[in-house]
């Protein structure tokens, strides 16, 4: 595995550092896991394209030496779709937050999954809108507090992985910042998978989520990730009640289905053949 020094040298725009993230944030570790996965896959820097959204997660690419387009809020997967469809030889990774992907970008998310377009969607789920100061998000657990839910959220949250599965994603996995080695493996599998890959990373926002929910220490939040995690296999033997408050981690789905860009290319080839005859 790349050492930190090697990773910075090879993949980071060191002159753009330090990053803007708060102390204790999970984004930096996730960014590093992504780069290490790319490195292990042997993907050339010039053929990996990153699409970022808006929010804290939208700054991952700003420090990394790839082609990176930082689009509008929620639209990362729409931008990514245009890139991948026009230039299928590129490996495209879209990085979003839980609000970015699950709220304002929800429609692009479910349709990218339905289409099974060969993209990797990495969603950093810190269960809150961090960049704007701690508002509740579609993944804020019922009863948890945020600046727009001071006495506790009265909305039911999304399970983004279940949403991805329902929408037809052909690779779906969840990791945490605490289980960083596993996350790196999941990202590697997701990027290598041909089709729409969805990886949710449960992350920590000590500054907003933590402070609103009496859990402000980054170490305590990482401990929570460690102690709440249950593997996909172990979860199969647990009742819904037993799974309350748990984070199910690992691969939920990995299957082959017709992939959109390849199917479109086949159409082009068919027309080309007809014209030649």
């Amino acid at each position, binding site marked *: 595995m790349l050492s930190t020094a090697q990773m910075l040298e090879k993949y980071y725009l060191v002159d*753009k550092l330090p990053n803007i993230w708060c102390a204790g944030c999970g984004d930096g570790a996730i960014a590093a896991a992504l780069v290490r996965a790319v490195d292990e896959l042997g993907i050339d*820097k*010039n*053929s990996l*394209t990153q*699409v970022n959204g*808006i929010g804290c997660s939208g700054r991952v*690419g*700003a420090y990394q*030496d*790839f*082609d*990176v*387009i*930082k*689009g*509008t809020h929620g*639209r990362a*997967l*729409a*931008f*990514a*779709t*245009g*890139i*991948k*469809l*026009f*230039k299928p*030889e*590129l490996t495209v990774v879209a990085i979003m937050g839980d609000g970015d992907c699950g709220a304002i970008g929800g*429609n*692009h998310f*479910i*349709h990218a999954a339905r289409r099974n377009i060969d993209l990797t969607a990495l969603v950093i789920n810190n269960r809150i809108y961090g960049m704007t100061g701690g508002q509740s998000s579609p993944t804020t657990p019922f009863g948890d507090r945020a600046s727009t839910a001071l006495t506790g959220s009265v909305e039911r949250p999304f399970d983004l992985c279940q949403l991805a599965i329902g929408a037809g994603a052909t690779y779906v996995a969840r990791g945490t910042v605490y289980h960083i080695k596993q996350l790196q493996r999941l990202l590697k599998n997701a990027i290598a998978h041909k089709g729409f890959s969805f990886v949710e990373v449960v992350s920590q926002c000590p500054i907003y989520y933590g402070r609103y929910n009496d859990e402000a220490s980054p170490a305590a939040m990482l401990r929570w990730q460690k102690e709440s995690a249950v593997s996909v296999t172990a979860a199969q033997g647990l009742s819904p009640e037993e799974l309350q408050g748990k984070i199910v981690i690992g691969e939920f789905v990995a299957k082959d289905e017709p992939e959109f860009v390849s199917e*479109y290319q086949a*159409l*082009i080839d068919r*027309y*080309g053949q007809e*014209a030649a005859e």
Partner: protein
Amino acid sequence: MTTPRLLQGNEALVEGALAAGVRFFAGYPITPATEILELMARKLPRLGGKFIQMEDELGSMGAVIGASVAGAKAMTASSGPGISLKQENIGFAIIAEIPCVVVNVMRGGPSTGMPTLPSQMDVMQAKWGAHGDHPAIALAPWSVEECFTTAVRAVNLAERFRTPVTLLSDAEIAHMREVYAPPESVETIDRPRPNCPREEYVPYRPDERGIPAMADFGSGYRWHPDSNCHDEYGFPATNNHAVGDKLVRRLVGKVNDYAEEIHWLSEERLEDAEIVVFAFGSVARSASEAVDVARSQGIKAGLLRPISIWPFPDPAVAKVAARAKAILVAEGNLGQLLGEVQRVAAGRCPVAHFSRVDGLIPRPEQILARIKELA
């Protein structure tokens, strides 16, 4: 020339766009622009190009931007409600300087309005639809032939200026049929691309005309287009006053300082005209006939027809205002271009107005009656 054919406006527009090199289209069904979507779906894969019907209008604008950064000449088409939804990403294409063409087949508004009927109500939206200070380029055809020629020009201007270009058609122009023989080939312009070593590439450092060179994603230059105010490297500089000031002024200046390159007008019987009708698109068809009839009745009338609406053709209007007895602005809205003409005329001659906003284009005699009042 090809063989003359009976073509629909939307069909000619698609042919023009393809002739100019459009190889990516993303869209969403909407009247009266749907034929463009359907024809692109049919034609692009046969040319090795890519078509996608996206989940919504926001997504189709996003996909167009993605394809353009990957190197495509890319286009989308819609009408009022859809164009409103696209504004967010049109703003992105402006600040990140991503060439693309947005066709607005205008229908009556506001909101879903009168979906199958023509209007010219989106003239100001084409200029100020996206928030923030920004440049705007918009072209408006009045015939099937011009659907083809303005589509070619729109693609070329988007590439030349690295900014979105709006093509303002309307339900009348889009759905009418005329005989036209598209040319075998057209002159095309490609965006400036870098040819320096990667280490020397500064993605947002402009050339002497204010336009930076744009590398295709995947070509090895590795750059960072960003929705935020950014420095010459594309890196966010959201609290840097000097960088913000310089960027916004350059974005506007790179178009407005070269407006003469964009201005495209048609003049009919203007030489000695006393009453000059200023009209574009479908309304100008009636205005043209009104001018002919006025002439046959001894009234010195003429028509100044902008084919490029934005940047506004100030010099042409100023020239007319200096010697006309009156200018009559005829348009399918309640005065969106009237204000522009008044601004440029600046009191040098009276500026009268004729509007129709009931989903019909004016009859020539209605415009003629106004010409007679002014003569």
